[in-house]
């Protein structure tokens, strides 16, 4: 991605509810036209973050800047930030036209301008001709798209989406997951996207802010995050489960990591107590790698493209992901897992 203007700056944002800090020292930045996903488990403060940025709640500390301007005293309706709520919050007393045109009406536009804006927004979400429909006659997917059209119609300088696919069933989610990036990139829209789903994040985001318990865990592209998680939390949240307590020490001038299943060379700069991640997606069954672990297949499950195995070695239980077109070993069968420790074994703080 080419370097673009930084538009949103979040600095040391703190929000407490009573004793507990919902958000604790959050800082990150967004560039114009960028899609940033805020990823984290439920209750990690994601929605609170959106509400603070939208101005629906006030932070206890910290700053929200848009193109250098402090938003602290700018009320919600003047910020120009759109927010699409998790349950859509469509106005039940207005039809689709009334909903989608609401923001344009608030801008004081003429009726014909509103009408044009509404049909343009509906075209974007592929709901042409829905203007006169009542919102309670819409299906779940249609509601989601009307909500999106409503948020897009006033052309917000920042669009925030709060779990936009969370309320939908699996098939609908997968379809909209394909539509959404197309719609957003057509508009070159700056988007802050909140979700707890890493699949959604990887499909949509240019960059990811990973949150846990109100704190930023890691910021990076989806690729960086997946291939180089910095903490055990990040690894576990991205579905990487082979995590073990380990010790890094210098031996003969080179660092070595002592794990429950063996001692291997490492390139990490960390020393002392660490967490070792043995990536299940970087192991093979051929027994030809620099290192080999023997184990018995305890469980296996077929996941379409991938085959997941649980292998019990004499020390630990490992999960690994293999191509499903391989000959799958039977449960109980003894296998040889081979891996390159410098590639498959990562040391996390």
């Amino acid at each position, binding site marked *: 991605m080419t370097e673009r203007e930084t538009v949103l700056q979040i600095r040391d944002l703190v929000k407490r509810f009573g004793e507990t800090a919902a958000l604790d020292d959050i800082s990150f930045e967004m560039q114009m036209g960028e899609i940033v996903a805020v990823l984290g488990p439920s209750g990690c403060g994601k929605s609170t973050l959106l509400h603070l940025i939208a101005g629906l709640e006030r932070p206890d500390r910290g700053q929200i800047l848009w193109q250098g301007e402090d938003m602290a005293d700018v*009320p919600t309706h003047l910020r120009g930030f759109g927010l699409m709520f998790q349950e859509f919050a469509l106005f039940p007393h207005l039809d689709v036209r009334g909903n989608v045109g609401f923001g344009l009406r*608030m801008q004081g536009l003429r009726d014909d301008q509103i009408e044009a804006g509404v049909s343009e927004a509906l075209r974007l979400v592929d709901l042409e001709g829905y203007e006169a429909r009542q919102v309670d006659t819409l299906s779940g997917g249609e509601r989601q798209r009307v909500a999106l059209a409503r948020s897009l119609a006033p052309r917000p300088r920042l669009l925030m989406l709060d779990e936009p696919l969370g309320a939908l069933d699996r098939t609908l989610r997968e379809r909209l997951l394909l539509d959404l990036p197309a719609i957003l990139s057509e508009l070159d829209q700056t988007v802050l996207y909140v979700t707890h789903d890493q699949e959604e994040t990887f499909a949509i985001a240019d960059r990811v802010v990973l949150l846990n318990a109100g704190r930023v865990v890691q910021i990076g592209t989806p690729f960086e995050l997946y291939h180089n998680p910095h903490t055990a939390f990040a690894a576990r949240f991205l579905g990487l489960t082979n995590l073990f307590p380990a010790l890094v020490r210098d031996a003969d001038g080179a660092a070595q990591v002592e794990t429950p299943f063996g001692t291997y060379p490492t390139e990490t700069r960390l020393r002392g107590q660490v967490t070792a991640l043995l990536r299940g997606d970087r192991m093979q069954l051929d027994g030809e790698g620099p290192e080999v672990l023997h184990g018995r297949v305890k469980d296996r499950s077929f996941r379409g493209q991938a085959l997941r195995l649980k292998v019990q070695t004499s020390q630990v239980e490992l999960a690994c992901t293999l191509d499903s077109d391989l000959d799958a070993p039977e449960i109980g069968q003894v296998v040889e897992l081979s891996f390159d420790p410098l590639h498959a074994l990562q040391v996390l703080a």
Partner: protein
Amino acid sequence: MNANPSSLRVNKRGTGFQTGWLLWLPPLTFLVVFFFYPLARIFSISFGRGDQGIFSLLLQALTSENTLSMLLTLALGLPGAYLFARYRFRGKTLLRALSGIPFVLPTVVVAAAFNALLGPNGWLNMFLMNQFNLAHPPFNFMHTLGAILLAHVFYNTTIVLRMVGDFWSHLDPHLAAAAETLGATRWQAFRRVSLPLLSPAIMAASLLVFLFDFTSFGVILLLGGPRFATLEVEIYTQTVNLFNLPTAASLSLLQLVCTLAISVLYTRLAKRIARPITLRPVLLTQKGLASSRQKLAAGVLIAALLIVLVTPLAALGARSFTRYGTAPRGEVVQQGWTLENYRQLSEDPQSSIFFVPPTQAIRNSLLYAAATVLLSLLIGAPSAWALARRTSSRLARILDPLLMLPLGASAVTLGLGFIVTLSQPPLDLRTSPVLLPIAHTLVAFPFFVRSLVPALQSIQPNLKQAAAALGAAPRQVMLYIDLPLVGRALLVAVVFAFTISIGEFGASALLARPEFPTVPVAIFRFLSRPGAINFGMAMALSTLLMLVTAGGMLAIERLRLAEVGEF
């Protein structure tokens, strides 16, 4: 409810058509004899003659003070409803319970309470007379429009607080927030999103407030005085003082049409509240008071609610324990705390034949209330049971609103109807002691039935089927399944019947025999007569009545589970 259609069909065939009719029979007979027949007589009498001036009276009733007090009630109630709906604060439950007490107070107690606070013998005037050595009460509150308005706001605010507040508390706060993120100011978000969504609830509450203002007989009679004769007061005067039944009847007819029209409108709106709006659990919609500005606004509002809704109650209670005497120079002085007012209740103050000891009135009221409970159980319980059987038969659809009609007719009209029908053959009950319990049962009927029906409907049909499959006969199903499950609701209904009977004034004022007064009638008599002793006894009796009805209300509140819109 996810009762599947086939199980309903089985149910229907199982109980059979004949038992269905049998269930309807007692309540229908009761309503026909004691409600529709009297009303029909009023119709026929009123068509016998016309009267000019009626329409101006009607116009006045519809426009002036009722509308004004409705607007005032909304002015206090809506901010209160917002506070209750959106915020958590300490003492909220208590404030909510306190705000409900004025609503259930008998109208004579409301009048007595305002007398105790602002009347010629009330706290304010006593204070001013003591301070400035005045011979006469300086502040003239009784018989002013302000008195009526204040009393109306006093006992109707809770309707707005509850009906609008309950609905509001379940309205998704994200709707208004969404409007703001779309560029709407706070005010625009309220005007264009929250207000339209709340409007059915606000309209329904307003109509109900209007209805209660319209039928607030005792308050107008005691606080308003002759200058503010409403339809009801006029009906009463025409009947009792002038014995001009035809005029009274035509007035009743007008009154009936008005209240029925309002009731129908109310029922329609109440249905619209149940519009498909996603309601949110209160946990998600309410938050604490954060900024100091919010706290200040909430404090002012809570203070206003306390002043309007609670001070009259406190004034009444305190006044009943106060002795006042007249000093030599004519000014009134407080002579300390006393139980004298209560002690005198057992004495016959004036030994004229129309005065009986107040303890006798208490005994009468308790007997009438017990009879009302009994009659309600006999009549109301089968009605509720018949209504709750989810058979969508045409019969049930017609009978349902029919059974609710007494809510729309005022007690005074009912009393008048009784006078014109039941004092002559074929039914001569004028002197019978059952007359009042019958009237009270009718007044309590809608409340009694409405408390029971939701509970009965909530019983899953498969429970009954399971019992039947285990060999229980229909009677045993009722005894061992229905009854235990609706026990609480039945208790609520009984307390309703009892509380309403104890405090009922409109019908009692017309129907109670002079030698058998009820407590509200006795209070009315004491308040209408001059003298410190009479006033003191009115205070004592009113305080007792306030405690009983407030106790009943709190019991209902505790027994009943919160239900949106169910009145």
